[in-house]
């Protein structure tokens, strides 16, 4: 649905500021995706083996220098994108897979069930995200799936709230009543009449959440709750690098930090532009 829209109107996209934002975001994301996919070909060294003297300044042989164990920072930044993407993707998929159906069904049924589930979701939602993730990660322990799970729990209520509120408005729309009038079953009404109408807003939440999830993941790794070293991970590298800041070894912190900032920025701009584009009220004007 939206790929068709975007393909048709590339020219219009470049025309206004939200379009440029969207394209810049897209450009950043493409760079990071290429980085993650072709990491073994792009990285000059193995990210988990010492490749030179420790704490080398950035130079021709080591573009971003080396860390205290002699690992190449450039290679670690490139490989780190894989970890960021996979955890963010798994976490977002889990959160969406739980949050979207719950929001759909609970919003559609309504009544007491709605009040109870919404209360639970709201209480999870009011927790500061990182603190909740830390608590769950501390319980579950390290590892890709465990970290993804603890991040997912934080974002389930976001999906639930967005979907539920939309379903509540859409279910009183005339076309849903019309579907009941022609004798459609509830599952059919949900899948054919309600879901397509809430999906566009979900796509926006999805891309915003990925940005958030990457930050949370970096935060967890920074605190030592992430992936076991020496697997390359930006958050972990950042926490290791900050021990050497006082020695003026800036490259240990700057490059992984920059990677985190750019990828989050990419996702945020992408989702913001997407939002402008998929928002039906703005779409109608064009």
């Amino acid at each position, binding site marked *: *649905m939206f790929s068709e829209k975007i393909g048709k109107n590339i020219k219009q996209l470049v025309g206004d500021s939200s379009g440029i934002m969207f394209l810049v975001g897209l450009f950043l994301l493409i760079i990071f995706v290429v980085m993650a996919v072709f990491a073994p070909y792009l990285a000059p060294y193995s990210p988990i083996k010492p490749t030179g003297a420790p704490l080398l300044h950035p130079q021709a042989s080591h573009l971003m220098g080396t860390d205290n164990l002699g690992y190449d920072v450039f290679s670690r930044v490139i490989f780190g994108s894989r970890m960021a993407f996979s955890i963010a993707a798994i976490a977002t998929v889990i959160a969406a897979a739980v949050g979207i159906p719950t929001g759909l069904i609970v919003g559609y049924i309504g009544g007491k069930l709605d009040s109870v589930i919404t209360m639970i979701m709201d209480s999870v939602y009011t927790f500061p995200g990182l603190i909740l993730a830390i608590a769950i990660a501390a319980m579950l322990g390290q590892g890709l799936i465990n970290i993804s799970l603890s991040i997912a729990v934080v974002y389930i209520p976001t999906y639930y709230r967005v979907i539920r509120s939309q379903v509540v408005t859409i279910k009183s*729309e*005339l*076309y849903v*009543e*019309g*579907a*009941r*009038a*022609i*004798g*459609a*079953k509830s599952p*059919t009404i949900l899948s*054919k*009449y309600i879901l*397509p*109408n809430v999906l566009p807003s979900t796509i926006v939440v999805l891309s915003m959440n990925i940005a958030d999830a990457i930050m949370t993941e970096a935060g967890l790794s920074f605190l030592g709750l992430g992936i076991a070293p020496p697997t390359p991970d930006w958050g972990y590298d950042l926490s290791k690098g900050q021990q050497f800041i006082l020695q003026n070894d800036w490259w240990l912190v700057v490059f992984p930090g920059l990677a985190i900032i750019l990828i989050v920025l990419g996702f945020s701009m992408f989702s913001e532009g997407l939002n402008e584009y998929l928002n*039906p009220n703005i779409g109608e004007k064009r």
Partner: protein
Amino acid sequence: MSKTESVVVVNNLKKYFPLKIPWLEALRKKEKPTVKAVDNISFDIKSNEALGLVGESGSGKTTVGRSTIRLIEPTNGSIKIHNQDIMSLKGESLRRARKNFQIIFQDPMASLNPYMSIGKSVMHPLEIHNIGSNFKERKEMVLELFDKVNLKPSKEFFNRFPRQLSGGQRQRVVIARAIITNPKFIVSDEATAMLDVSVRSQVLKLMLRLKDEYKLAFLFITHDLASAKYICERIAVMYLGKIVEVASTRELFEHPLHPYTKILMGAIPIPDPTIKRNKIMPKGEIPSPTNMPKGCRFRTRCPYAKKECEDMDMELTDMGSNHLSACPFIK
């Protein structure tokens, strides 16, 4: 008027909406307050007959339409459509029965799923009720109907989305969707109210044509007496949840009996400035439906109100030749 030939027979239909009150008060009061949106209404419609249901906004017309096909659950009453007791149906059997009665909503902009092509929208009832054996056959049926409701070229329209259509075209799609399962009874809930005058007459003509062709029983809900006059054989006038008068269209326009009907008729503009007439105007405002006057509900505004009006029921009585009125004092 024998009941056997009627497609739709509704008796003593009631729909009360409970009012929200603080729970402490709810504990104290024995009788929970309700809004009597529809109070003891009976009517019947034969095949190839359109019954107009007219009344001002808030009189409960729409509630009658929706509860007759159980889109909202009536509080009480009996509904028979095509010799089937609709009130006793539950869940799956009600769902299956829905192919016999359909509704056309007021707002054509909102009654189609924006993410479904209009062809699929109209085809969906066929899929639900297992009419036609495969996609091709169903598509054929939809295209044929598109031609009939003047959505031409039908093949091009099939893949269009509601946003690409004008209001009149969308209403034709909604009519096509209502008619595709070959129903016996159609409720048209102010179906032409939101259309331009020029488009309105076309859609009215279309409905009239389909009514004849499919031998439909039509419940034509409207506040526009002119459209009702154009389409309906009989007209029922509603006031605050009650039918106050039923008569054939001609009879109603020529000899309105109930004071309320007289007032409604007096409100129709006559396109001739030289004609002067004695307008009877209703007194005051429409009473609050939560606090209805005792006896006749119209007596607070009726220019002919007397003492007896406080104690009477608003029973419809035959004033001769199937002209029913709820006011026993004016004959």
